[in-house]
């Protein structure tokens, strides 16, 4: 049985040979151990890429994934964009709704400030305006979501 690791923890030349030549005796656990080591060891990843310098050892996929990769990147960018702005819109909507139903209004009965009393009239008028605005805003949101085609947004192949 081949030794895959030296006593100092680094990968042996046999390990790289077994990997590069697709040795069938290399078990799934051994490949997992090797990949775990390569995921943090700079020295061994450099040795591994050096082993793959020879172009004849490289395997070409039957079809280039270039277009699929670009498509996946665009989908991801779009998804991030939609998530970001949808969150902002929802947060803004909640803020406006809370404002319009008076959650942010200060209890003036218990307050003593004269300055606050001077705002009473304007607060109510602002609330009415906010109500109108919320209704218009909700209708606009409905129109936006009604017109979006969500089929392109979902990505069932994406694992992450």
């Amino acid at each position, binding site marked *: 049985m081949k*030794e*895959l*690791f*030296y*006593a100092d*923890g680094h990968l042996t030349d046999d390990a790289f040979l077994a*990997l*590069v030549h*697709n040795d069938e005796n290399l078990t*799934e*656990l051994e*490949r*997992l*151990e*090797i*990949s*775990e*080591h*390569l*995921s*943090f060891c*700079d020295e061994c*990843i*450099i040795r*591994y*890429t050096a082993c*793959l310098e020879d*172009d004849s*050892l*490289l*395997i*070409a*996929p039957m079809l*280039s*994934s*270039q277009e*699929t*990769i*670009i498509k*996946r*990147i665009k989908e*991801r960018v779009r998804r991030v964009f939609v998530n970001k702005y949808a969150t902002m819109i929802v947060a803004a909507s909640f803020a406006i709704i809370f404002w319009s139903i008076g959650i942010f209004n200060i209890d003036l009965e218990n307050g003593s400030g004269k300055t606050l009393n001077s705002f009473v009239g304007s607060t109510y008028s602002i609330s009415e305006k906010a109500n109108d605005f919320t209704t218009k805003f909700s209708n606009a949101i409905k129109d936006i979501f009604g017109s979006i085609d969500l089929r392109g947004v979902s990505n069932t*192949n994406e*694992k*992450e």
Partner: protein
Amino acid sequence: MTTEKFKTLICQYEKLVFTICYQMVRDYQEAENLTQETFVSAFTHIDSCREDTMKAWLARIATNKAKDHLKSAYNRKVALSQDMSEMDVIRQENSPEQLYMGEEGAQRIKEKILTLKEPYSKVSIMFFLEEKSIDAISAALGRPKKTVQTQIYRARSMLQQMIKEDT
């Protein structure tokens, strides 16, 4: 980075990334999928990489993707086999470890630990015998904490298996 420049990068390194993924997972379809995932991740973090280290950087991402795939496949298998072994333990009155501990004692387990090979040897000695913490082991060996935890978990399973075989 522009789309055109990134396409050139894909052309340049696609074979290398696919080869690494294939050599790790040994499954053509999965290697293709992991190759795509590698480049998608690379695009997201491309600004953190220098041109001269691009090759090793992409190789690192590819091995990470392959590792995640192999790990989830391995964990699924282990979970299944553990379910079975738990049933065996229920059937017996005492677990093998309990029997072993009762008959032979800790010295024999220590001997078993010393027979483990890398990447489990040092981790097991430090954790089981020297009773060092995960943080201390991670710092001493320069391995990520998660890797140390996984290696301890697997070493424990291996030791349990050895004990079972002995009894």
